[in-house]
């Protein structure tokens, strides 16, 4: 992208700059790079480089995102194409997905996701309203708490809850005998609760954004023109419909494509969900790729349908309630009982979403005898820090996270710059591709990778990366790139081209102009995107579970293995250490940015955000 971007801005000054030293006594600006590099680049015309770079870029993007997923999905209807069956075209795999255990898993996934999305909205809407429209105590911390819930992978809270309430869990060890809680959590109710708690931040963010654009004057206008308090609310509520639809659609899509809860709490409760069913079809020997592909089709459809319905229902109704004018926020004064009730309710949510899982994980990690006794000890932490094979996965995931975040952010900036600058047919397609990829369940992505890179054609092409760390990293990058690019494209779109033009007009070369004129403005979003990717990859489960190289399990897989082998204490200690490390890395990076970035960069970053 950068080379492609440079093609249109080459000027004779680029070459002339470093060739002759400025006359004595007139230092002049020296924005150029080292002469040796310039010498090497001399003679290479940037438009030519762009011509080569563009197809390479599309090829890489296709190999990363398009080919694996498309191959895998085609497999469901044409197994012969990939030597996976005798038929060139068949619907039998899709029909098969509607029978037996797969049908049960699909039905479970759909009703549980509907319930979770509804739960998310029912809890997220009032919290959003309370924190943006009332004098709720501690409302400043709600947003941070929501991001925390959002950033933690779903399997972590699920494990915490599970470890707390299971028959021989922490509750039982400390003498609390409440079988009804165990039965409730380790079953459909618990699955809905866990997935629903995860939907709450999406609802909260969507409704908060909606409320932010919804000035108090809409309600005032209704009251002044004769509506009662209730009538005014009824009139104004539809303005929030886009936010409500978004919350429901995203909540459903997130829940139906979730693998973390499906592979932990749901699996251990013998409550089958479609994502885990897909995983089992690949994980069993021999793997049944066509059946897995059929489930992938249905998962993709079940994600696409609500998103399409949302888009259709909102067509022409994207109410433009935002204006350049800053509206005064009118907060309703809560009465003392109201304050206690509201704060208690919000606190209860965070207790369920973060507090109880944290208690479950930490207490589980402090129990001795691999979690089989009630004695408090640090032996599990010692095992994680010094035991054979326990520290390796943490180091591995740390490296994978840093590597993936760095590569993804570089790629994300390039893609985002492409999307923000030009609206051609190819960039529109790229935009669609990224949006579709964001909606694609990770487990489908991973399955596509396993299948595609196991195909003989890749071996014939010399691409033998199946069951290697390389494939896992590529999978991580491909899965993170769409979200990353979508996050950065907003910032890129706001960049005024004159920033770069001004630097060039004052003598900077193309790269120097970007570094001096653009990078400072986008530095903070870049750091945030890096942290977002690192956090997601460090604790990532579905891709890791399906793609890890034998003998080199990443952190999430190692934790699952420990729990699967009844090493509960070590597994939970590993999870606790992982969360602490993730927070430490986030703190170090943010601290380093604060200390090392020039003051101007930090100010520009704030301006770009705001």
């Amino acid at each position, binding site marked *: 992208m950068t080379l492609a971007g440079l093609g249109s801005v080459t000027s004779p000054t680029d070459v002339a700059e470093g060739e002759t030293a400025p006359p004595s006594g007139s230092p002049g600006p020296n924005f150029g790079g080292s002469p040796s590099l310039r010498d090497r680049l001399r003679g290479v015309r940037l438009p030519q480089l762009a011509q080569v770079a563009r197809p390479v870029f599309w090829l890489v993007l296709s190999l990363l995102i398009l080919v694996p997923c498309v191959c895998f999905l085609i497999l469901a209807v044409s197994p012969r194409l990939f030597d996976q069956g005798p038929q060139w075209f068949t619907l039998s795999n899709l029909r098969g997905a509607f029978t037996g255990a797969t049908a049960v898993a699909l039905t479970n996934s759909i009703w549980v996701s509907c319930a979770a999305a509804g739960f998310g909205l029912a809890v997220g809407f009032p919290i959003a309203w309370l924190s943006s429209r009332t004098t709720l105590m501690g409302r400043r911390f709600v947003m941070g708490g929501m991001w925390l819930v959002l950033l933690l992978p779903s399997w972590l809270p699920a494990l915490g809850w599970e470890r707390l309430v299971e028959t021989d869990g922490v509750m039982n060890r400390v003498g609390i005998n409440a079988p009804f809680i165990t039965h409730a959590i380790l079953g459909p109710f618990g699955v809905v609760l866990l997935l629903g708690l995860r939907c709450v931040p999406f609802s909260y963010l969507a409704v908060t954004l909606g409320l932010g654009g919804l*000035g108090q*004057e809409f309600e*005032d*206008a209704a009251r*002044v*023109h004769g509506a009662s308090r209730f009538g005014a609310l009824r009139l104004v509520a539809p*303005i929030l419909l886009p936010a409500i639809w978004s919350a429901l659609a995203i909540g459903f899509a997130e829940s139906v494509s979730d693998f973390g809860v499906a592979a932990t709490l749901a699996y251990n409760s013998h409550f089958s969900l479609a994502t885990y069913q897909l995983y089992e079809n690949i994980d069993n020997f021999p793997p049944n790729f066509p059946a897995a592909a059929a489930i992938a089709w249905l998962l993709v459809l079940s994600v696409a349908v609500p998103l399409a319905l949302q888009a259709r229902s909102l067509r022409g109704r994207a109410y*433009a309630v935002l*204006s350049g004018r800053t509206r005064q926020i009118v907060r309703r004064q809560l009465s003392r009982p109201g304050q206690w009730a509201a704060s208690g309710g919000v606190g209860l949510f965070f207790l369920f979403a973060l507090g109880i899982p944290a208690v479950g994980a930490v207490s589980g990690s402090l129990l001795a005898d691999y979690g089989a006794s009630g004695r408090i000890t640090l032996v599990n932490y010692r095992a994680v820090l010094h035991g054979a094979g326990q520290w390796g996965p943490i180091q591995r995931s740390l490296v994978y996270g840093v590597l993936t975040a760095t590569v993804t952010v570089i790629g994300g900036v390039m893609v985002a710059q492409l999307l923000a600058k030009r609206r051609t047919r190819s960039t529109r397609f790229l935009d669609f591709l990224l949006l579709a990829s964001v909606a694609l369940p990770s487990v489908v992505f991973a399955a596509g990778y396993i299948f595609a890179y196991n195909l003989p054609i890749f071996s014939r092409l010399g691409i033998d990366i199946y069951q290697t760390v390389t494939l896992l990293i590529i999978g991580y990058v491909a899965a993170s790139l769409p979200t990353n690019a979508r996050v950065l494209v907003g910032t890129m779109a706001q960049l005024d081209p004159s920033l770069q033009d001004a630097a060039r007009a004052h003598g900077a070369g193309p790269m120097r102009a970007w570094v001096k004129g653009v990078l400072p403005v986008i530095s903070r979003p870049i750091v945030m995107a890096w942290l977002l990717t690192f956090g997601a990859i460090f604790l990532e489960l579905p891709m890791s579970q399906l793609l890890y190289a034998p003998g080199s399990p990443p952190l999430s897989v190692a934790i699952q293995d420990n729990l699967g082998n009844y090493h509960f204490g070590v597994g939970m200690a590993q999870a606790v250490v992982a969360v602490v490390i993730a927070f430490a890395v986030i703190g170090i990076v943010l601290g380093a940015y604060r200390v090392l970035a020039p003051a101007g960069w930090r100010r520009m970053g704030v301006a770009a955000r705001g």
Partner: protein
Amino acid sequence: MADRLAIAELHKVYPGGVHAVRDVTLAVEPGTFLVLLGPSGSGKTTLLRTIAGIERATTGSITIGDRLVAGERIHRPPEQRDLSMVFQDYALWPHLSVNDNVAFALRRRGHSRASCRQLALTMLERVGLDRLAERYPGQLSGGEQQRVALARALVGDTGLLLCDEPLSNLDADLRERMRVEIASLVREVGATTIYITHDQQEAFALADQVGVMSKGELVQLGSPETVYATPSTRFVARFTGLAGELRVRVCSSPSPRGTVNVEPVFAENGIPIHACIGRDAPSTGEATMTIRPGAVALCGTEDPAAHLNGTVTDVAFRGRAYELAVDLRGGGRLNGIHSERRVDRGSSVGLQLEATGCVVFDGVGDGDAGEVVGLPSVDMDDVVVGMPA
């Protein structure tokens, strides 16, 4: 049927102690167009919202017609006050069509759906938007949205219409056109209107009565002519348009017509200046004289009638004539001085002051003695200057 509005000893104190409205008492006769003028933070929006019932009065009373809507332990909610309002950002419900927005006020008054629709359409026709009745607010321009908001406020035929800076979001040209439309439509329906703005030109152009607010208080209430000619305080004089202020020395006793002779502290030409006596003006010693742009006339430097001399520092062509900024020889500057002909920058000019636009107040200027503080001017074409009372 227009309503009479009476406000007595009204206070509004927000939680946290901000005293937004202080002891406001006023009466607005039926059919009167009252403009409340004041800078940001002067309490005018709070006063309007308290009249509407959106804010609850802390103490004092509000009576609309013969209904006490706010008083001791009485707070009628907005929907029971039978009024309508045009909001600053229009507050058009984005999910309702233009017709539905306008018809909303009627449906609440018990009209049938068909009747609502027809009446709304008739009102939209009056504001020239009947062809856009089925569109949504997001599909309209700023001026069209403003007219829909006005139609919604007028269609209910309420006795009291409140307008919260409805023109502030429009560009200059559209603002002037909409001002004319509002003035004619509102007077056509005959509603009592309370209109707030921080733009003195808009206020003088629209109002039957102008109330000037500062720091929550209503500091002057009167006709535009009275407020302009006899500002009650230096704040009112400044906020309604000055060429500048001048430190002067009172050198005569007050005349029966309410004027006094003064001379600048820097003793310019020795010709006494006739000026009106403002509230609390001292009978002797130093004072501050506010000067309206219309009170300054250009003359030659050697003209025996010239009160002040100075140098032209800026010339602005305003279409029909020029506006000059003149640095006075004794220090300070006067802005917005009318001239029929172009005067080159750097030219020396004489200035003659008329008593009707010069008012003497107690107190000193913002700067050192003799300093003249230049302030934004009011175009004399927009106002009628009356003789001081």
